[in-house]
């Protein structure tokens, strides 16, 4: 479907790649924090596990689930974007991703902070799918806000 530019903007190659080969999808062991996010309307599910180190860094992350290409790839991309980042950085990235999907103006620095998850930017042209893209980020917010 290469002639369909909007569609390809949403389903970028990197999105399809993360959908087919999700990163950080191995369940954690040890002392981790865990939450589930669920969209009852389409059944999309994201399961998120985190280990935050003593110096408040995302030391380990696991994202699993089932659902559409957008929700699942977004979870995988998110894990890459926040791995090794501090709690404060993660909170900031979370805000920036939301702002990006709302098509708000972002500074270069804020855009850079988003990292690989910039790939989901094309979803903003498909408002009904923004919820799919934000499912994993909602789960992340729930866990991170405790710190």
């Amino acid at each position, binding site marked *: *479907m290469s002639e*369909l530019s*909007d*569609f390809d903007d*949403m*389903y970028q190659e990197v999105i*399809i790649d993360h*959908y087919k080969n999700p990163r950080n999808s191995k369940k954690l062991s040890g002392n981790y924090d865990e939450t589930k996010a669920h969209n*009852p*309307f*389409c*059944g*999309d599910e994201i399961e998120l596990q985190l280990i935050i180190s003593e110096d408040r860094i995302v030391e380990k992350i696991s994202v699993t689930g089932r*659902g*559409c*290409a*957008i929700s699942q790839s977004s979870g995988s991309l998110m894990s890459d974007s926040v791995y090794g980042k501090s709690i404060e950085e993660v909170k900031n990235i979370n805000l920036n991703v939301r702002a990006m999907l709302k098509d708000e103006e972002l500074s270069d620095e804020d855009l850079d902070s988003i990292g690989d998850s910039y790939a989901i930017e094309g979803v903003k042209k*498909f408002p009904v*799918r923004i919820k*799919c893209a934000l499912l994993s980020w909602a789960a992340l917010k729930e866990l991170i806000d405790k710190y």
Partner: protein
Amino acid sequence: MDLERIRKDFPILKTKVNGNDLVYLDNAATSQKPKLVIDSLVDYYENYNSNVHRGVHTLSVKATNEYEKSRSKVREFINADKDEEIIYTRNASESLNIIAYTWGSRNVNKDDDIFITPFEHHSNIVPWQELCKNKKANLKYIPLTESGDVDLDKFKSMIGTKTKLISITHMSNVLGTLLPVKEIINIANSTPAVTVIDACQSVPHMPVDVKDLDCDFLCFSGHKMLGPTGIGVLYGKFDILNEMPPFLFGGDMISEVTYEDAKWNDLPYKFEAGTPNIADAIGLGFACDYLKNIGMENVWNHEIEIGEYIFSKFKSLDNFEVLGEKSKEKRGGVVSFSHNKVHPHDIGSGLDQFGVAIRTGHHCAMPLVRSYGIVAASRASVYIYNTKEEIDIFINRLLEVEEYFK
């Protein structure tokens, strides 16, 4: 049936979606509207907009006449006896709620049974759940056979003097299969129960005769049958409606009001409090005219043909499964399907890029869709204006989308 001519009557079919000709296959959600219906709305607002039932001036008389004429058209369309048996509502959901709140609250008591089927739309589940919670009554489901159809023998063994209400869909909005409503009504007649038919997917697509069905109530929405949104119908047998208390109170539903009390107006006005949806009711009358002119037998035969065509296409595809494939019941022009890998929302977004509109999700029938071990499905549903060529486009594009996500 002259498909080419019919298609010309629907202005929206000329619309381009994402650069492609629109292929509209979401008719079970809402149908498109012919020019005749659209024009009737404009005509009302431009030429005789006025309130009904109380004015003595020319426009009010004309508006009242057209509003009541529409009621007669609807009555004739479903072969009811009297105009008084046709109550205008917003939609089938409101019609079902009226029954639950008025007939239900008066006649359903503790430990009574209400029966529905596992195929129901949320609008024919939730009002009964609420009624049963309030009354401490039981909501029961008619069991299914191995092929996934209603098990009438088991049903017979479950009913009795405690059975107060049986509410069933005429045609599943997910599976597209017809339910044996006549047999169920026959069985129900051995109990004190009233019978309710959710006819949202049948009245728009096939001949429906309330006298032949002998149901006590029948509910449907105008917007699924070429009519405007915001207008629906509650049919009820005169004697039962007449006994029922009103649902909403206010203007138009009274015959006499003192500072202390009020007397209720006659049917159907007792159930139409406040200024009704005049324009859209008139529009629905024109939708009935349009369908009657084509002939409901012709509409139904066309949809069976296109439905079978879709069904046969899916049978030849790997990786796709049609929901309710094993059913032995007759099916119309609704086919829901799932893919063993690609999520319905990806399918729906993909097809949309090609101008093909289908529905994805749980189709307001969460329990049924879940019973297939999935949380969401894709659905193609047809109407009089859909062609086999459109189905070919749909299937070809579907395969392209599948390839994209493979």
